């Protein structure tokens, strides 16, 4: 399954074109697609959210998952957006979006300024202290480097010793890179340094400006960057990361968590999840049946 990870990457700029055409053409299809059969029962079982409008906090800097629509910037588009709306359809709620920095996603949820977070956020035990997660996707990271990979970086390993890595504040990759410091020292090499930014665009610019040597993040994000700057950037390699992507919900609302999980199962049963992966040119290998991750 892991062998077909990078099909999307090979399609060069056609993929971008495809994505946008798909977004335009598939939208009506989605709308007409019948709500999964089991959803009627779910609406009866969980009536609290029927007819409501909930707030989804997102960090819209990840094209493919969530970003503004370049053609109509008043809209957000991406896999996560569609998946969230499919879940909303199933339970009978609508979503509005609140754009925040990545590091503020969970605090926004915890303060009640948002009801749900579907924003390509990796579910970790640490983060589960702030929110409950319903995991829905496996994680594959890409290692973005300057064209030609001058530093010869080939993963989250000793090849990073002495390199400068751009990362977003709050990303799980940050501690993984930090953990390399003692190992590099042992090997008699300089430690890697980390530059913390606020969004993908800034991390990518850091490499383009020659300030950073690499940016390790979700493989799709990395592919998008390479597509945008094919003469200047490349993906060195892809790595697996021992996490899953999750939908975050408030800790004090277990009923809502169960409702969202039940809805996600219905959405997956209908094949909508796989359809959306295809629509957004994401690897079908990302697909994962939901689990719940909590702090205890």
């Amino acid at each position, binding site marked *: 399954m892991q062998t077909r990870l990078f099909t999307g990457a090979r399609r060069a700029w056609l993929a971008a074109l495809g994505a946008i055409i798909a977004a335009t053409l598939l939208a009506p299809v989605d709308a007409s697609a019948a709500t999964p059969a089991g959803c009627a029962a779910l609406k009866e079982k969980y009536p609290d959210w029927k007819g409501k409008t909930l707030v989804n906090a997102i960090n*819209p800097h*990840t094209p493919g998952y969530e970003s503004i629509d370049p053609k109509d910037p008043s809209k957000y588009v991406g896999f996560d957006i569609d998946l969230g709306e499919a879940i909303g359809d199933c339970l009978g709620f609508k979503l509005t979006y609140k*754009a925040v920095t990545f590091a503020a996603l969970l605090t926004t949820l915890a303060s009640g300024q948002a009801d749900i977070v579907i924003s390509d956020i990796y579910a970790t035990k640490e983060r589960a202290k702030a929110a409950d997660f319903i995991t829905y996707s496996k994680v594959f990271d890409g290692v973005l480097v300057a064209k030609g990979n001058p530093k010869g970086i080939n993963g989250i390993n000793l090849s990073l010793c002495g390199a400068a890595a751009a990362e977003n504040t709050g990303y799980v990759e940050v501690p993984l890179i930090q953990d390399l410091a003692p190992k590099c020292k042992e090997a008699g090499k300089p430690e890697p340094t980390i530059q913390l930014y606020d969004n993908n665009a800034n991390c990518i610019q850091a490499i383009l400006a020659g300030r950073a040597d690499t940016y390790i993040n979700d493989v799709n994000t990395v592919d998008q960057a390479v597509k945008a700057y094919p003469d200047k950037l490349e993906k060195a390699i892809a790595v697996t990361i021992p996490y899953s992507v999750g939908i975050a919900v408030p800790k004090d609302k277990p009923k809502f968590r169960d409702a969202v999980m039940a809805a996600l199962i219905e959405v997956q049963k209908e094949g909508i999840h796989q359809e959306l992966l295809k629509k957004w040119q994401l690897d079908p290998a990302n697909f994962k049946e939901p689990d719940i991750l909590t702090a205890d």
Partner: protein
Amino acid sequence: MIAVGTALRAFAHPTHLPGRHMSLFLHYLSMPYLLQGIELTLQVTALGLVGGLILGLILAAMQLSRFWLLAAIARGYTVIFRGTPLILQMVFAYDALPHIGIKLPAVLAAGLALACNEAPFIAEMLRSGVLGVDRGQLLAGQALGMTPAILMRRIIAPQAIRTMIPAFGNEAVSALKNSSLASVIAVQELTLRSTQLASSTFDFFSIFFASGLLYLVLTGAISVIQLALEWLLDLDRTTKQRKLADYLPWRRVDLATKLELAAKTSPAIEAAPPEPAELKETPPLALSIEDRARRAATIARNNIAVEVKHLRKAYDGNKVLDGLDLTVRIGEVIALLGPSGSGKSTLLRCINHLENWDSGEIRVGGRKLGFDEAGRKLTPRAIANERANVGVGMVFQQFNLFGHLTAKENVAGPLRWVHGMGRFEAERRAAELLDRVGLSHRADALPRHLSGGQQQRVAIARALAPNPSVLLLDEPTSALDPELVGEVLEVIRRLAIDDGLTMIISTHQIRFADEVADRVAFLNGGVILEQGPAHEVLTNPRHPLTARFLSVMEAERPKDAVA
């Protein structure tokens, strides 16, 4: 579809042709999505500035208040909100307040944080603006019977606001830029929209140049508003010689223009010292011995105008007044002589209740100052009303004209604000008084365009306007150039002899005292050492200290240019 196609090609094939960058730049510059972001940027900025102004006013009032606890609370607030980064305050207002049940929409939370952050800066501007207003003018306003509220509204605020406008402009620009921090709490303002757009299109530089230009347009607009306000409030604008063009950035003649302007609008200064048109000729005023005796006999029968009994006052243990007694009858002119620090000025200020005293009693027109009918001490506001009712006018050494008002308004304004006179009547009275001091032709001049002697004559007119029963003059000619002393003394002399006005004058002009005063009192160490008919005391002092003082003054005489 064509626009979409262009965007798509740009998305897929970033090129480095300047032409493409330029067209992308123009595309983003006119993009409604970014332009709508400006609306939110302006909303947050406006909330921050208006809220900051309101909070700042409260803070400044607390800091300037008589109550130490209010001042301490304001100080504590300032330490916290000036000392922490705005970005933390934004996150706090947005993410922490909901935990205590206050869930503000993002724009309001950002506006609140910005307002709380701006408030201490605005308060400092207000405070320094208020403290920057000349203290002498405040004293003069108080002496005219203005309550603290009138003083703030008519004298302090108009002058303080003028000096604060450049600082307000700076603050507005910084608030506008700081509003971009609202992007961390999901306010869809210009910066957040730009970064989102950059993330989804990868047109990083075109977008940021466009949004940078939009910010420049906004801050430029603020600068234009600031300059327009400066121009509108420029006092010299009314002379019609001040052009808006003087404010253009490449003008570097500002100070020179102002000096030139002052010179142009004050022809009186360089005119020959005697101004024939100004003061009407009167016969020389040398009262004969018989005249003096007759005058003294009349005054002796008059009622008491001012009575000071056992007045004591000390500053930090230094006795300034040490059980001073003085009685002044209606129509009498008293000259207070004595070395500096002998208590002359303090005595005058006490008679007008500009200062409190430790013990003793002052009665003006039979009314005891500083206490209400039940014997309670008066509040500052009640003291102001008392001053207005009792009718004690005061003229200061430094003139203390209200700098933002014309000569006529200096006289007419207090009549309207303190005595409730109608506009027409007040202006008529002002015109009449300016005529009396020979300054009708300078009625519309600002104080800074008048010579010292002219300013002091306006100050006298202002003090006379409410028809005071007593006029106090605190060294009225000491701050004047020698050649300007004569015109002021002439005005005072006429008030004494023609109008029979009751006056207490502290002065160093011995000869003037001899000519004009009925009685001279020599002060030393806070008591009256010697007093009596002017000519007698001055020519034949009994107390050795008086004699020594007079001989010293005599020795310095050549310096007095009194004709």
